[in-house]
C-alpha cells in the first residue's frame, strides 16, 4: 500500500524588541547568565506584568503580511505547568483568543531544474499567537543549571494547518516563512541562536484516505536542514511501522530529533497527559487593535518576497535564477534597485551583484545572513561601474577586476580606472600594430580563418587582448583583425 505523510508545523519566533514581553527588562543574546531579569521575570510577589506595545505591533504586522484575520480583541491566559524554565510555574500565552486567525504562507517547491521556477502553493495557517519565552536549561550529570535571560522575551507561535505533505514542502514552508519575517524585520530568525524554533506534527495515512493517522510530535529540529532530515526520518519510520502491520503501531507521543545519530527517539513516558489548566490572566487587560492601527501597519508593509521576484523578472527582464539569488534577501534586492535607479542596466548590475559582489563578500568572511553589512561599495558606485562598461571606457573583464578593488578600498570606479591606467584602448594606430604583430606570429589560426573557419578569429582576438592586458575594445579589435585579414 502507498502511504502519504501529513505535516503541520509549529514555529516559534522571538520578536526583535528592546525589552521583554510583559516588563521592561532588556532583551539580548549571549549575555552573562541571569543578568537580564527583574522582579517580573523572576516572578517575585507583587510584581505586575505590563504589555510591550512594540511586540503587539510586530505580531499584527506578521499577521497582516501572512493574510491573517486580526482579532478585534484578544486576551492573555496562564498556561500552568511545573518546570524550572519558568519561574512563575506558568507561561503567559493566548489560549482561545489569539491575535491572528487563519492566513497562509506562500511556498515555492523545487522546480524541474535550478533555473526554472517551481510550483507555488499557499499553505494554510491556523493561527498566530503571542506569548513569552522561557528560561534556558543546561543539563549536566545529575543536575541542571537555569539561566533566566531568555525568560519573558516576546515570542510568537505560528501554527500551520496539517497542510504539508512531504519533508520538501516543510522545508519550503520554513524557508518562505523565514524570508517573510526577515522582510518585515520583526526577527533575525537565526535558528542557531534559538530565534526561530520549529516543532513538527507528523502522521501518515494510506494514500486517498481522508482521516488523519496517529499524530507524533517531533521536537529539537534545530536547524533548517534538521527540519528536513528529521521529518524525512520520521515519515520513513512511521510508514515502516504501518507496513509491518500485526502488532506494530504508531503511538501518539513526543519524539526528539537527534541530529548526530540521525534518528528520532521517544521523549517521555506519558504517565499523564498534560493538563495546563489555562485560565485568563487577571493581571493583564485584553488588547484591542483598532482599525486605524491596522491600516497604518498594513500601509507600511514591505512588498512580499514572491511578488518582488515576479516584478524583478517582468520589470527588469531578469532570469529566474538571478532573481532567486537577489529576492530572498530584502537588503540585497533593495541594493539592486538603488543601483538600477542610478544607471539603467539591470542585467549588468544584477550580474555584478550575484556573481562578483556576493563572491567577494563570501570570501571576506561576511555573515551571509546580512551580506551587505559593512560592504564598502555603495549601490551608486556599482551603477557607475556598469556605466563605465556601457560607455566603452572599460571592458567587462576589467570591470570585474575594478570591482574587486572597489570592494577592498571603497574607492570610486573612475578613480581606480584612472590610477591603474585601465582605460580601454581605442587608439586605432596602436591597436593596428598589435593586431598585425599577432597575425604575423599566429599563422595557424590565420590560415584556418582564411580557409573559412570564422571562429578561428577568436584565437587571434584572445592574443590581442592578452597583449593589451584586456584594455582593448573587443569590437574594435574584431573590426581591425577582419580588415587586416581580408
Amino acid at each position, binding site marked *: 500500500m502507498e502511504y502519504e505523510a501529513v505535516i503541520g508545523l509549529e514555529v516559534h519566533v522571538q520578536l526583535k*524588541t*528592546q*525589552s521583554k514581553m510583559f516588563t*521592561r*527588562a*532588556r532583551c539580548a543574546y549571549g549575555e*552573562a*547568565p*541571569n*543578568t*537580564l*531579569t*527583574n*522582579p517580573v*521575570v*523572576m516572578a517575585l510577589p507583587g510584581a505586575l506584568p*505590563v*504589555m*510591550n*506595545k*512594540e*511586540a*503587539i505591533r510586530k505580531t499584527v504586522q506578521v499577521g497582516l503580511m501572512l493574510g491573517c484575520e486580526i482579532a478585534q*480583541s484578544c*486576551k*492573555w491566559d496562564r498556561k*500552568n505547568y*511545573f*518546570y*524550572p524554565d519558568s519561574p512563575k510555574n506558568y507561561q503567559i500565552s493566548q489560549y482561545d*483568543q489569539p491575535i491572528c486567525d487563519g492566513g497562509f504562507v506562500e511556498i515555492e517547491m523545487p522546480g524541474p531544474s535550478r533555473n526554472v521556477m517551481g510550483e507555488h502553493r499557499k499553505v494554510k495557517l491556523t493561527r498566530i499567537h503571542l506569548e513569552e519565552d522561557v528560561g534556558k*536549561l*543546561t*543539563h*549536566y*550529570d*545529575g*543536575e*541542571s*543549571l*537555569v*539561566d*533566566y535571560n531568555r525568560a519573558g522575551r516576546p515570542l510568537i507561535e505560528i501554527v500551520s494547518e496539517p497542510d504539508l505533505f512531504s519533508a520538501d514542502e516543510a522545508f519550503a514552508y520554513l524557508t518562505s516563512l523565514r524570508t517573510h519575517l526577515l522582510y518585515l524585520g520583526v526577527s533575525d530568525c537565526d535558528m542557531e541562536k534559538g530565534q526561530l524554533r520549529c516543532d513538527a506534527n507528523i502522521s501518515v495515512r494510506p494514500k486517498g484516505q481522508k482521516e488523519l493517522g496517529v499524530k507524533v510530535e517531533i521536537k529539537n529540529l534545530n536547524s533548517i536542514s534538521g527540519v528536513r532530515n528529521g521529518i524525512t526520518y520520521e515519515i520513513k519510520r512511521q510508514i515502516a511501522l504501518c507496513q509491518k502491520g500485526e502488532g506494530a503501531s504508531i503511538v501518539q507521543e513526543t519524539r526528539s530529533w537527534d541530529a548526530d545519530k540521525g534518528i528520532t527517539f521517544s*521523549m*517521555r513516558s506519558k504517565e*499523564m497527559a498534560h*493538563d495546563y*489548566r489555562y485560565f*485568563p490572566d*487577571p493581571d*493583564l*487587560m*485584553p*488588547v*484591542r487593535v483598532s482599525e486605524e492601527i491596522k491600516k497604518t501597519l498594513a500601509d507600511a508593509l514591505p512588498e512580499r518576497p514572491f511578488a518582488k521576484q515576479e516584478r524583478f523578472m517582468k520589470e527588469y527582464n531578469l532570469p529566474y535564477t538571478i532573481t532567486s539569488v537577489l529576492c530572498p534577501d530584502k537588503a540585497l534586492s533593495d541594493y539592486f534597485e538603488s543601483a538600477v535607479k542610478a544607471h539603467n542596466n539591470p542585467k549588468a548590475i544584477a550580474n555584478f551583484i550575484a556573481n562578483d559582489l556576493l563572491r567577494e563578500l563570501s570570501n571576506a568572511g561576511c555573515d551571509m545572513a546580512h551580506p551587505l553589512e559593512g560592504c564598502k561599495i555603495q549601490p551608486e558606485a556599482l551603477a557607475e561601474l556598469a556605466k563605465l562598461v556601457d560607455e566603452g571606457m572599460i571592458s567587462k573583464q576589467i570591470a570585474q577586476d575594478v570591482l574587486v578593488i572597489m570592494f577592498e578600498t571603497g574607492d570610486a570606479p573612475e578613480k581606480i580606472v584612472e590610477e591603474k591606467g585601465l582605460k580601454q584602448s581605442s587608439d586605432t594606430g596602436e591597436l593596428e600594430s598589435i593586431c598585425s604583430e599577432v597575425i604575423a606570429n599566429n599563422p595557424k589560426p590565420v590560415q584556418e580563418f582564411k580557409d573559412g573557419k570564422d571562429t578561428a578569429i577568436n584565437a587571434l582576438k584572445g592574443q590581442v587582448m592578452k597583449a593589451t592586458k584586456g584594455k582593448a575594445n573587443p569590437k574594435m579589435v574584431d573590426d581591425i583583425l577582419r580588415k587586416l585579414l581580408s
Partner: protein
Amino acid sequence: MAEDKNSIDIDYVANLARIDLSQEEKDRFQKQLGDVLVYFEKLSAVDVEGVEPMAHPFPVYNVLEEDVVEEGFTAEEALMNAKHQRNNQVIVPKVVE
C-alpha cells in the same frame, strides 16, 4: 471516581500541584474543594443570556508600555532566593522534558 461534577479527583489534583498528601489530608481537601465547586455552581443560576464573556471584571483595554529598557537585577540580586547556585545559574535536579 464518581462522575459527580462536584467531586474532585484529589490524587490527580495533588499530582498536578506536585504535592504529597496524607490520607487524612486527602479526605479533608477533597471535601473542601468539593465545597468550592458547589459555591461556583451558584453562578450557573445567573441568567447571562446575551452577555458577552469578559476576560476581566473591568472594561479596560490596551494597558501598554513603550518598548524602552529599564534597569533590572544584577545576577547576584536575581539569585538571592536560589539556595543552590553555580556559575551565576540556579541549580535544579536534572529534569529533562
